[in-house]
């Protein structure tokens, strides 16, 4: 479904991603874990076209998307929920969802119903300005907004960040559900324990390089991972 081959990304002089290659197969949940500043977010930004790679290529469902701009990728089946949610704070919940279906307008009505089924809390707040929502609700809105484009591949960047444990569990349940209903997921998480529990496979990033990869189970039981990311 997604193939990232040997990309190198720079911020000015800083070499942020070094020879990153990874793959996401259809119907998988793939997690990208690692410490702060390891390059997880940069990887997602490069895949979704917000950043450019100097070398290598990115292929989405057989099509080379290395040089395609972010706004053209949505209609190709890629949705990206950015870190920090980035909902449109001054627009209503409903308007945020409408923006999610910008390239998929015919689906707007059904999509909103579907999102409200998945996230009943949003339904009660549909005419509220997104800036007045709680952090958890904003995360739900950001995910709902991404679903409005009916993506084949959903990329989630730190969906659990800043949320209370009970909400974290809820968000992970939702991710599992989405996966069951046929969405492929590329998940970036600092909460490695939670991520490895639901991931089919995972990559560990360290200082811009892929250090380890394997199935979720393998990595969760690896001593190295336990020490570095799972607190023991």
């Amino acid at each position, binding site marked *: 479904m997604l193939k990232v081959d040997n990309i190198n990304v720079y911020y000015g002089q800083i070499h942020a991603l070094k020879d990153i290659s990874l793959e996401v197969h259809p119907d998988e949940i793939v997690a990208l874990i690692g410490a702060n500043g390891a390059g997880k977010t940069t990887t997602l930004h490069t895949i*979704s*076209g*917000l950043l450019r790679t100097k070398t290598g290529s990115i292929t989405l469902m057989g099509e080379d998307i290395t040089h395609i*701009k*972010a*706004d*053209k*990728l*949505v*209609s190709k089946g890629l*949705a*990206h929920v*950015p870190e*920090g949610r*980035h*909902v*449109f*704070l*001054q*627009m209503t919940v409903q*308007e945020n969802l*409408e*923006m*999610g279906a*910008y*390239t998929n*307008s015919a689906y707007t009505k059904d999509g909103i119903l579907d999102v409200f089924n998945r996230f009943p809390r949003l339904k009660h707040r549909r005419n509220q300005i997104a*800036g007045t*929502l*709680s*952090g958890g609700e*904003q995360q739900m809105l950001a995910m709902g*907004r*991404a679903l409005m*484009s009916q993506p084949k591949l959903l990329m989630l960047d730190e969906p659990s960040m*800043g949320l209370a444990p009970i909400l974290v569990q809820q968000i992970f349940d939702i991710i599992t559900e989405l996966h069951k209903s046929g969405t492929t997921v590329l998940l970036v998480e600092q909460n490695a324990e939670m991520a490895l529990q639901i991931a089919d496979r995972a990559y560990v990033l360290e200082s811009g390089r892929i250090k380890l990869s394997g199935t979720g189970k393998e990595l969760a039981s690896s001593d190295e991972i336990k020490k570095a990311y799972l607190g023991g």
Partner: protein
Amino acid sequence: MNMTLVSNLINGISLGSVYAIIALGYTMVYGIAKMLNFAHGDVIMVGAYMCFCSMTYLSLPPIVSILIAMVVCTLLGVIVEVLAYRPLRKASSLAVLITAIGVSYLLQNAALLIWGSAPKTFSSVVPFGSVSLFNGDLIITGESIVTVAACVVIMICLTVFTKKSRMGKAMRAVSEDKDAAQLMGINVNKTIAITFAIGSALAAIAGVLLCSAYPALTPTTGSMPGIKAFTAAVFGGIGSIPGAMIGGVLLGVIEIFSKSYISSELADAIVFGVLIVVLLVKPTGLLGKKITEKV
């Protein structure tokens, strides 16, 4: 009732309506591209010249001439954005500001080359004369009526456009968060160009209305109203559409009242003085938004 007072008020609202229409262009472009387009005032002048030429040399009816002016200004606005501002999207705001001032001088001097420095006498596009009320105690010019009406209609249309239409919502999305808007599939450059197009078309209308009321048209006709309208946009809260309206109308009223009751020479100083006071008390302007972000 004091009819001079009422008459001054109406003149103030009418002048303020022109400022408001210009200020909309400033505020919309600022909202979406986070830049001050100081060439906006000169687009007004180009619009007025286009309308003038079309009426005088081609003898076309006013309404057709206004449409021609709007089309030319729309193209001009988009060309300026694509050629001058788009390459600077990631440059410092100072570079963009200097470019905007450069475009402003370019337009003024191009107009000077084409039309010369001698004022052209603009004939009003308003087909009817003044309305006389209270046995002639209160006279309202046709230009005032049309200007205020145009301002109200534009305000309503723009509000509905930004609140309800798909493109209007996309404009709000881009003005709030460009990266997130791109991730929705919105073409940011195209949306910014459309904003310039709308602002410039409005500038053409403002130019025609302004010169219908104050008929001496020169290459610098747009600069002072441009600066006043910029002031109005800041006064009302830059980035806010109703703010531009309120700021424009208040500024026009303050200007006319200062001219009538205090001193013509001091009027501009008073206008800008009020701006300074407002910004000291409320730095975001009257309706400026304070954005609170949840982490």
